């Protein structure tokens, strides 16, 4: 009899041994086991370690559902930490929500969870242990004042739509618009930026346009004034008087203006005729007013693009 019992014990210890070897451990991390009230969520975390060829069968994971009339399983999250030293580790997060309304502190149980691990042919059970906790009541059993037992917490009144985000967005958009307008005006020489000393050709172009547009039939005076305005722009750009023979040095000092070299030479020869040869008509023929205005605009845009 004693021998039989020993064999039975040996069998019992040997038979489950292979299954135990494949499941290393299941550790349950739970929140505090007391002081929970109706509607609370409880997150249980199970650390599961399996021997390497085994993986947790995803089909054995529970689906979020109502487990009992008072207990819901809200969320199931499984994260796989991979294999390390022949052991595969998982973290299983189980989020429960309790809707029990106790009259006095009461112990309740979250049932155990049966999962399984597979390695292709074999299947071993993995048991996440049960857990119990104390739930506390929210209210006294018998109200002290009349009608207090049925006094409800107040409604949530409707709130106006918050307007602050839209105001903030409007102010930000207008600020950006103002900044962009400033950059644009600076670059185009609009408004106060047009009188900047660093943009003599912008000023000259305005002078040329207004002089040539002032009279329908371009008088020699207006034409000469326009020529003079451009010459002053050349002078103040170079920092000294610029004459036809100084032009190569001017283009060497201000390379972007080199793209308009031919027109600039025409301008200088026309003004030589107008001022020194006293032949305004010839100058008008060599560089007609529309071309003079076009040249002024061209020089202004060359200057603007970073001369």
């Amino acid at each position, binding site marked *: 009899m004693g021998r039989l019992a020993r064999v039975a014990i040996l069998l019992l210890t040997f038979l489950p041994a292979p299954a135990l070897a494949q499941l290393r451990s299941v550790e349950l991390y739970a929140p505090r086991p007391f002081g929970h009230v109706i*509607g609370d969520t409880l997150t249980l975390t199970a650390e599961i370690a399996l021997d390497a060829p085994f993986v947790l069968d995803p089909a054995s994971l529970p689906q979020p559902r109502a487990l009992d009339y008072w207990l819901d399983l809200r969320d199931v999250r499984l994260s796989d930490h991979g294999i390390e030293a022949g052991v595969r580790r998982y973290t299983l997060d189980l989020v429960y929500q309790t809707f029990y309304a106790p*009259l006095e502190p009461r112990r309740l149980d979250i049932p155990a969870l049966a999962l399984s691990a597979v390695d292709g042919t074999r299947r071993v059970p993995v048991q996440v242990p049960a857990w119990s906790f104390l739930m506390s009541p929210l209210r006294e059993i018998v109200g002290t004042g009349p009608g207090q037992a049925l006094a409800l917490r107040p409604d949530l009144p409707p709130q106006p739509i918050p307007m602050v985000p839209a105001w903030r967005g409007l102010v930000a958009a207008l600020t950006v618009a103002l900044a962009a307008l400033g950059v644009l005006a600076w670059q185009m020489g609009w408004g106060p930026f047009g009188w900047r000393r660093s943009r003599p050709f912008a000023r000259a172009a305005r002078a040329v346009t207004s002089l040539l547009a002032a009279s329908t039939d371009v008088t020699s005076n207006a034409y000469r004034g326009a020529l003079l305005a451009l010459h002053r722009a050349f002078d103040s750009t170079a920092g000294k008087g610029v004459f036809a023979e100084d032009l190569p040095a001017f283009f060497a000092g201000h390379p972007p203006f080199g793209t308009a070299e031919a027109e600039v030479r025409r301008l200088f020869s026309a003004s030589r005729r107008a001022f020194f040869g006293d032949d305004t008509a010839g100058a008008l023929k060599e560089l007609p007013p529309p071309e003079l205005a076009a040249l002024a605009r061209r020089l202004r845009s060359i200057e603007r693009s970073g001369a």
Partner: protein
Amino acid sequence: MNAGRLIILASSAILALSLAAAAWFGGRLVVDHRDNALIASLATGHDLAASPDDPAELRFARLFFLATRDRLDETQPLLNRLATDTDRRLAVAALYDMANARLRIAIDHLGSNRIDPAVPLVRLAKEGYRRALVLDPGFWDAKYNLDVAMRLVRDFPQIDVDGEEMPPEAAKRLWTDLPGLPKGLP
């Protein structure tokens, strides 16, 4: 393309975009201002129909208006839409206010001893509080009122078959505290 032209193009594009954004924000301010005026007039007791396209705040204001005047049948379509809305805060508030309205009516029924119409209302209120708590588990007022509703229904175990949440001896202790129970014949 040279640097100056690039700066002009970029700043013009930014100017156009920011002006468009400013116009959009300005339009939203005007619309929000109008909707806030409607919400305020609902709060002062003028009924206004709210269409499904209105912003959630306005639909919630209308729901609150109807729920606080016990017009629960008209409230249900509004609640169904708000409860599935992306704005979780308003969904919780709508579920909670609606459950409160049902529970208040149920308590009125119980006060005049009409138990049969009260029980389904309490059950619906419990359902509403539970859905609100699923969305926001830290909502204490919903917990409190759900507790009130739970005790109400459990106190009629012969009607509510799933009212086994409380041990019978506790129910007996609570019996005398209940409203709407016969206090004995005159």
